[in-house]
């Protein structure tokens, strides 16, 4: 459950994409996996790389860099897929690398950069700034 009161802490998972720090609410994250074989699906926007088989479920995966910046990241052994659940369906995000799990208080989360867009707020921590993503926006065309 997300708590919005001032002093409550929320827990975020940080990740890198295009050499920038991002964060996602960890309560919706279900898996972090290595990049498996991705099955190509035609007729989709190019940031949707296709489907992966996660324990018998076919889950669409999105190239986060492609989605945010319109260009692919180089994938290496640090790259992985963050699987999260949105409206009852799973979705995978291919990211450059996964960072840490951080606890932040609501007071260190500031503002809404834009009403729309992938980033809902900026979180400042001792380790730097992380952009908190809107997980539901990423799936919407």
């Amino acid at each position, binding site marked *: 459950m997300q708590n919005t009161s001032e002093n409550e802490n929320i827990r975020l998972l940080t990740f890198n994409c295009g050499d920038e720090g991002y964060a996602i609410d960890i309560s919706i994250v279900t898996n972090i996996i290595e990049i498996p074989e991705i099955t*190509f*699906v035609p*007729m989709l926007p190019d940031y949707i790389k296709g489907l992966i088989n996660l324990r018998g479920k076919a889950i669409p995966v999105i190239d986060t860099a492609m989605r945010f910046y319109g260009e692919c990241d180089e994938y290496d052994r640090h790259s992985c897929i963050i699987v999260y659940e949105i409206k009852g369906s799973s979705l995978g995000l291919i990211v450059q690398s996964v960072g840490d799990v951080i606890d932040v208080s609501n007071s260190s989360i500031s503002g809404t950069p834009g009403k729309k867009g992938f980033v809902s707020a900026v979180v400042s921590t001792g380790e730097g700034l992380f952009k908190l993503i809107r997980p539901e926006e990423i799936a919407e065309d």
Partner: protein
Amino acid sequence: MPKFDESLEQMLDVYIYEEQQLLEQLDDILMRTEKEDTIAPDDVAEIFRIMHTVKGSSSMMGLTNLQKLAHAAEDLFSIIRDKPDIAYDKKILFDLVFQASDSMKSEIDILGDESAELTDFTQQIAKIRAYADVMKSADGQQIKSALPKEDIFTDDEGEDILTLKVKYAETCAMPSVRAMLLMRSLGKVCEVTKTIPLDINADNANDIITANGLYLKLITDDKDAVVNIAKKAIDVDSVEWVEKPKAAPKPEPQPEQPAPQAAKTEQGAAEKKKSSPERGGGMMSVSLAKLDTLLDLVGEIVITESAVISSPDLKPFMASLDRFSTSARNLKKLTDELQDVVMSIRMVPVANAFSKMNRVVRDMNENLGKGVELVFVGQETEVDKSVVDILNDPLMHLVRNAVDHGIEAPEVRKQKGKTEKPTVTLSAENSSSEVIITVEDNGAGMDHNAILAKAKQKGILKKPESEYTKQEALGLIMKAGFSTNEQVTNYSGRGVGMDVVKQNLEKIGGKLIVESEMGVGSKFIIKIPLSLSINDVMQVAVGCMDLSVPISSVKEIFKADMQNIVYDTDGTQLIMIRGKCYPIISLPQYFGVESRVGSLDEGIMIFCEEEHKRVCLFADSLIGEQQIVTKPFSPILGQYNLNENGLSGCSILADGSMTLIADVGCIINKVFGK
């Protein structure tokens, strides 16, 4: 707050199932009798019985609100049953009972939800009671049930027979049911030879037990245990031993004959059970979840079987595998048969889903006065149970829409000179791998220009207005936030509906198609896969795609010869097969991927037929034949309309890899139009 005792929770599923069956049965009877305009004594008795059972089981579950409502309805029909010629207004009666049945249904639907409070039916009960009084006073008679007195002690009673008096709390609604339960639990420590009142199943037993208490004649070695059990029983107020007055002359000891009495109560219980949902001999009901697991398992077995038999590890030994091959063939035969049997278990006629619509139309006729007739065609068509369940909601929406929006008001129909009866037709048919369900009305039809204008106003157009074909314009009504009726009515026009219907159908790989002719009527066609299960497919490579074409659409596969390929004037490629010319659809081109072969004769041709249209699909290479379980695409991909563009879903193969499933009919329509 939990609504039930913990001990009752496990009975909840059974209770809900039984109640639903009973109420559906009740609806059927009511619908029929209302149509026939008479309630035959048999029907009255049946309705009475249903209400009685609902009352009994609800009180057993401690659901006093439902129990009281059922009780009121039961009383109403007991008046009619006892006095068949009593005067009553059928319409009021039907409305009351329909309402009661609806309230019960919705209450049962939310039983599992602990956050929902029990609904208070006091007003409804008062209404029913009030009408019962009207009926009674009209008859000028009060029906009174006198409580017959029974002697507690008889002369011929044995010495060792003890008498236990159990008094129930006044709030206890159905002491006779409690008594039955009590006797069952007492059975462990004593033998109950007789009860007073004698027949605790009798109609007046409740009143007697409440007034006088329940007397149990029993034989036991452990008096304390009996008292303890009795005291622990639900709603029991007091328990005491009653001494036989000594004055009575001692009769001869009588040989013990507890059996008949005990048997009688047992039999009573059995009868009660039997009278709940009526089932034919040798039938049993199984939870759908178990069937689902079974079906899943069989699906896995079939796939694993083919993985084992066609394992690449076996290739080097193929020549010496005669006995293995024979066994493998036998195994395949058996698994195929197993699969067929499991599938057939789950098949039910669509009539189950259709008949529910009777009620919907009846209620709407009542309110809208359109006098719509509901016609069924092909209701015996069998489909998978899960399909029927999924059909309920879409059908409800479509039928409501048809009656509410589709069919014109009677005056309008008259004005237009429409003489035929306003009709909504529900039909079902099987077509190769699909079930086609249509909801057709002979109403006003839809004006695609009006729809376009409306869509424009709502801002849901995605391209210039003039570029929409009629079919596309009609399709707009299935977009979110669209409703053509200016006025919101009770039944439709809340702006949700068609888009939800479409989404729900797509979730299971179905389609919804709209056809409409101004002034003639509209037709909604639902196409759903026959069952959500295993298909035979031909797996092919198309560029970087792994595509599977259902074998049901494939006629043959061959390599093309360049000299058979001709070009039409507009550049379409055609191929000659046995003297006839068929168009070629290049799958790499269609899906926008790069082909791995240079020319048509290097790849393969898949000759397909779908809906009487024949084409050749061109693919890079053949991978093989597979059995697959089709999975619909994730709802996240729903916005990209893959289903409308020729991909019906995906499937995970035995080795963990995935394949996409082509919808040949859709591809043909997409390329060549309808």
